Structures are given as C-alpha cells and as structure tokens.
C-alpha cells in the first residue's frame, strides 16, 4: 500500500526542511509514498474563522481526491499538525452534522468528486509507531543519536482533539521514535502547550512569551535541542529566537523536525534533510 | 399535532423488566418524546410472537417497535435471544413483502436507559413519518352476504 502524502502549503514553504527530511526518511525505511495530486490548502485555522462550511469543503476536496487516487480506504499522511487537525475535523463534521455533510458532498459532486468517508487521515508519527514499530526503527538507525538530549515538542493540534494514536496531554510517540533512534528524550510537562500558532505573526508579544516559556523549560530540563512535528511550531520556536533573546535574554536552542533527527540517525546527509535551512545551527547544541 | 403532517401509528412491545421500566423512567425524568407510540407490555421480549407484529401492521400500525433487555441481561436469562432469532427471520420476510426496514425495529433498552427510549421513539417516528403510511394491500372481502369467516384470518 502506498501512503498518500498530503504536504499542505507550509511543507512547500517555510517548512521545506520537514518535507525533505520526512520523505527521505520514508524512502530510507522503504515506505512507499506518492503525493496527493492537485491537492489544495486544508483551510487551516484561519479559514474556519470566516466560513466554516467552505473551510470543511476545502479539506474534503483533498479527501475526495485522495479517494480517487488511492481508493476507498486510501491512507493520507498529513505531517503538518494544522492540516492533520483540519482534515480530521472535516471528517468528524461531515459525519456528525449530516446537513453540513450533505452540502459538502453535493458541492464536491458539482465538480465530479466523491467524498470518501473511509479515507484515513494519519500523522507520520502514527505510521512510524504503529506500522513500522520501534524495533524496526532501532534496527535501521545506522548512526544512532547517542548523547543527544532532545525535548520532544508535539504542539497542540496534532493530539487535540482528534488524534487517537497518542495521549492528548502527555503524548509519547515522538519520544519513542527518537529513543529508538538512539537519542535521550527529556520528560517535560509542556509537550502539548501551544506555541501560539499564527499569534506570533499577528500579536507578536504574546507569541514571543509563549515560545520563550517553551524554550526556557526545555533548556531547564537539560535538553540540547527541541524536536517538533509541525512547521508552524518549528517556525515559531526557531525563527523568533533572536527576538526572544532580545526581550527575555534566553540563549539559543536548535529546533529540528523529528524527521531531521531521524534522517541523521539513518545516516542521511544534512543537506538532504534540509537542516541547512534552519536559522539556529545544530552546532549551537552543546 | 393537528397541523396536517402525517402522524404515524406505532405499536411497541416492551418487556416488563427493562424497556417498559425504561419508558417509565423516561416519564419520571419528564423526557418529552413523540406521542405516536403505544406500548403493549409483555413480560419478556421472548413472549413476542411475530404474529403480533403482522397483526399490528394489518390493523393500522405504520410501524412496530420491540424493546427488550440487552443480550446477557434478560430477566429470564435468554428470552431476548429467542426474540432476536425470530426478529431476524421476520425482518427478512417483511422485506420480501415490501415493508421498509425502518418500520419494524428491535432495540435493546435497559431499565436505566430512559433517554434511549426517548431517542429511539423520536428517531423511529421521524423515519416512519418520512416513509408515509404503511399502505398494505387491502384484504378482499366476498360480495354478498357474509358467510362463515375462515378461522385462519379472522380479525
């Protein structure tokens, strides 16, 4: 079975390193994938603030296309937390609110698309833990991440409110994956505390404070880097570090996608994993 | 009620221990629901003779609801299993005779599930209302003076 990769807008832009590393990891683990053809934006959080039905229709179009491409039970991989949440949420709404569901399926029908209720939306961590398994991961780690102390940061929308593959407050899937790759992960209570999402771009002072709290606590718990599973989390935590330092005086901490760490453990080059795109060099981790 | 919408008639057969009690609980809890269902109390869903179902349909019911204890909870151990066997075969037979699936329904409703009584009744009334009257083909009667009515279909 081929996983249908739904990149979403960010993995083609600010989150390019996520796409590069994740697909490299999938290849290295021999997980077959194909990009969803002609996908569109999931709608993200902003869309729901304007028109809810259109937001879910946008998301549902992707699921309809995936169904066309991969059949009734196609498996869509949504690495971006926002995409993952929105696609899941659209499925829930279509199922739970039949009147909205009917409008959406009718609208898709107008463009000759059929909504696929059985298409599965999955996060790559779900695939890595449940389809691959930590034993296989550990076996594949040719350059294990020994000596690295990573704080796994899951962010909010990956586990809340729809994910069923991990705990909503204290998730462990990323920790298990990175531990299988040889890293040490630090236990910290802020794994799912929000990074502020788009607030960092809109109401900067609020966003900076939220990210400062996360960076400070990760460092306090002895982490030498943070691993994320969401392009917006990575962007907020990493690209604003200069500003955060300017306001709060904190020192710097590299923030990588979990897939970049995995790629390193699998022996892939930093360039292939997009690590050079980061503002805070990995070397900053001492 | 008299606004011209079709008001289906539904006969319900509820077992004394679970579903009838649940319907009482719905009452005690003042859970308002559609008034179209009239309950006939049986001691156990195992008492339900499929003839009761077709008799109700023939006599003007647009739907029949059967309520029993959840499997494993029968007050008489396994009466509801028997009800399920008969119901399964009856449903197939009724389907062959053009009677829509929604019209005859079996639900396991425990004594504590007053809310389920409410939900199931409202749901079923809406479904049967959407289907419209049952509309069984009328049974013909002989012209002329009424002679002996054969006992097999005396009504």
């Amino acid at each position: 079975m081929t996983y249908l990769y739904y990149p979403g807008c960010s993995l083609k832009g600010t989150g390019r390193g996520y796409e590069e590393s994740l697909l490299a990891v999938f290849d290295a683990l021999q997980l077959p994938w194909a990009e969803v053809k002609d996908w569109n934006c999931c709608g993200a959080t902003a869309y729901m603030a304007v028109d809810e039905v259109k937001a879910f229709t946008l998301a549902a179009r992707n699921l309809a296309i995936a169904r066309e491409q991969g059949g009734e039970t196609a498996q869509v991989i949504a690495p971006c937390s926002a995409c993952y949440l929105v696609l899941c949420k659209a499925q829930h709404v279509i199922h739970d609110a039949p009147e909205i569901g009917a409008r959406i399926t009718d609208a898709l029908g107008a463009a000759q698309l059929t909504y696929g209720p059985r298409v599965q939306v999955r996060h790559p961590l779900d695939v890595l833990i449940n389809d691959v398994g930590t034993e296989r991961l550990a076996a594949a780690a040719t350059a294990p991440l020994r000596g690295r102390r990573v704080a796994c940061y899951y962010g909010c929308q990956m586990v809340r409110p729809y994910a069923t593959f991990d705990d909503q407050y204290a998730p462990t899937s990323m920790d298990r994956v990175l531990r299988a790759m040889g890293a040490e992960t630090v236990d910290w209570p802020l794994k799912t505390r929000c990074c502020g999402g788009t607030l960092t771009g809109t109401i900067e002072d609020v966003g900076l404070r939220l990210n400062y709290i996360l960076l400070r606590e990760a460092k306090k718990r002895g982490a030498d880097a943070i691993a994320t599973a969401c392009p917006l989390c990575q962007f907020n935590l990493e690209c604003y570090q200069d500003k955060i330092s300017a306001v709060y005086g904190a020192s710097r901490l590299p923030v990588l996608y979990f897939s970049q760490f995995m790629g390193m453990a699998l022996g892939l080059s930093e360039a292939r994993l997009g690590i050079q795109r980061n503002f805070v060099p990995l070397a900053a981790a001492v | 009620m008299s606004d011209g919408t079709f008001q289906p008639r539904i006969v319900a057969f509820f077992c004394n221990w679970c579903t009838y009690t649940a319907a009482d609980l719905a009452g005690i809890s003042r859970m308002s629901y559609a008034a179209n269902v009239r309950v006939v109390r049986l001691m156990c869903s195992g008492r339900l003779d499929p003839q009761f179902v077709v008799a109700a349909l023939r006599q003007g019911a647009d739907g029949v609801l059967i309520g029993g204890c959840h499997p494993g909870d029968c007050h008489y151990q396994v009466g509801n299993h028997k009800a399920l066997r008969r119901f399964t075969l009856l449903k197939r037979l009724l389907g062959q005779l053009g009677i829509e699936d929604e019209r005859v329904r079996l639900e396991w409703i425990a004594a504590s599930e007053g809310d389920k009584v409410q939900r199931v009744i409202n749901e079923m009334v809406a479904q049967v209302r959407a289907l419209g009257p049952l509309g069984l083909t009328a049974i013909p009667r002989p012209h002329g003076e009424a002679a002996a009515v054969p006992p097999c279909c005396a009504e």
Partner: protein
Amino acid sequence: MSKPKVGFYWCASCGGCEEAIVDLAADILGVVAAVDIVFWPCAMDFKRADVEAMADGEMAVCFVNGAVRTSEQLEMAELLRRKAGLIVAFGSCAHTGGIPGLANLYSREGVLAAAYDAAFATVNPEGMRPQTEYAAPEGTVTLPELHETVKKLDQVIPVEYYLPGCPPPVKLITGALGAILEGTLPPKGSILAPEIALCSECPRKDSKPEKLDFTAFKRPHQIIADPALCLLAQGLLCLGPSTRAGCDAPCITGNMPCTGCGGPLEGTKDLGTNALSAAASVLEATDEASIAVGLAEVPDPAGAFYRYSLPASLLYAKKGS
C-alpha cells in the same frame, strides 16, 4: 328421492385437485352412484350455459378448487355460489391461496413483464401484452382479465367448508363426501380436517428430541436425510409442527420435509409468521452473527412460510401490489 346434485370446478390451479378426485379410485364409483354430477368441466362435457340454466341453489354442493386471479374465475365462482347450496373450498389454492398465491409477492405488471418480456425464450420487441378484447375479422374475441392479486376463494364468495391440502388427501375427501351424504357436517365455516398439528401423526414423531441442537438450517438437497429421524432434528425446515394434520405425512414418509399445504390450525392468526416463530425459536444461535449464519439457508422466508397461504396471510400481498 333424487340424488343430490354435485359440481366440481377449477379456478387457478394445477389440476392436481382433479387428480385427487380421480384418486378416489374405486370409491369414485360409490360417489357416482350416490350423487348426480351435474358439472365437472375437467372430466365431462358441461358448459357454462348448463350451469346458468340451473335454478339458484339447485346444486346441493359444489367443490371449487384453485385460487381466483381472472375475471372468468371470479364470474364462475359467483355463478356457482348462486347455483350451489354449499360451496366447499377444495385444496390449498381455494382454501388459502396456494402456490398461485405466491404471485402476490409481485405486482400484476411484474408478473406480465416476467412472462412477456423477461422470460428467457421470449422475443417480444413490441412489448405486447394480452388484450381482453380483440376485434378479429370473425368478430370480437375476448380473453379474461388478469386481476391485480390472487385471492383465495372466500375472498370473492362466501364459502361453507374447507378441504385443505395440496391436493386434499383421499381420506379427507371421502370423509367430507360421507358427511355430506349422511348429513353429519360440522358447523359452517369448518375445516374438514383434524384440529391438531401434523407432528401428531408423523411417523417419525418418537425420534424427535426434546431439545434440537442444530445451529443452522439446511436445505433438502444439501444432506442425505436419515430416513428414520425427525427432519427438524436434522436441521431441515419442516413445517409439520405448525401445519394441520390429516394427510398422514406422505412427504415425510418420502424423506422430504412438510411444506405446510395442510394450512393453519385453529388459533393461528397468520400461518407464515406462526410457523416462522416456531422455526426460528428452535435454532441454536444466540448472537446476531451466528443467527445470520443459522438462517442463511432459509433464503426465501416468504416462500418457505407462506408457500400455500400468502393470500390468506395478514399481509396478503406485497405492499403496493
């Protein structure tokens, strides 16, 4: 004193009931000796005009077999009703609708389409249908009209007595004739057959266990039935428990299960669902999945339980037909 006049007529039927009269064999001579047969189109050359010529009530008794589906059958039934003092619904079709009654599972148009369009050997590109009237050069030709549904006899005319069976067993026919001649008929409306189920006279009754433990029904072609053991105990759907006795179980003697031609017992409101209840009850299965498996080989419950009685059932016919 003149011999009582007797008539025989067939409506929608297979002719088996006529055979049953012939099966009286030597006894038929006794019948002929005792009564005056004034109408029997199947065996003797009588015409409708002969009946019309009779005075009302002239015939003492008329045995009518077959169900009623056409305008001709209806007219004849009504005519015979006028001419006969007693009408005996003879055989399953007249009694409860019989095999022809299963056509009530389909609409009239469905039946016609099956015969005139869909049948394998039919070529009918114009979609022709039988006409009730046709202007031929020789004059107008008429055909009886096919009714929407099949009716049992007492749904078109009042009936005094019923002789169940497909066809009625010789024993019952003889008994009925005797009762007519001796004037020992039971009250009108009676079924001239024993008031008990077939199990009571089944040759295998002693082999039936108190608890059947089959988990799935089987069909006769799927097993080689033990010729001595109760067929239900072998998982075959035998309607003996819910069917009126009187036939001495020839089918079971022939190692085939009872299919219910004897019709319903007193106290039965609806033969099919009554038989269904008994049959489904004894199946050893408790959860939905195993019940579905157990009932898989009853693929046509309407056909199985209403084989001879759909027009007599509370449901009468498929909805909308």
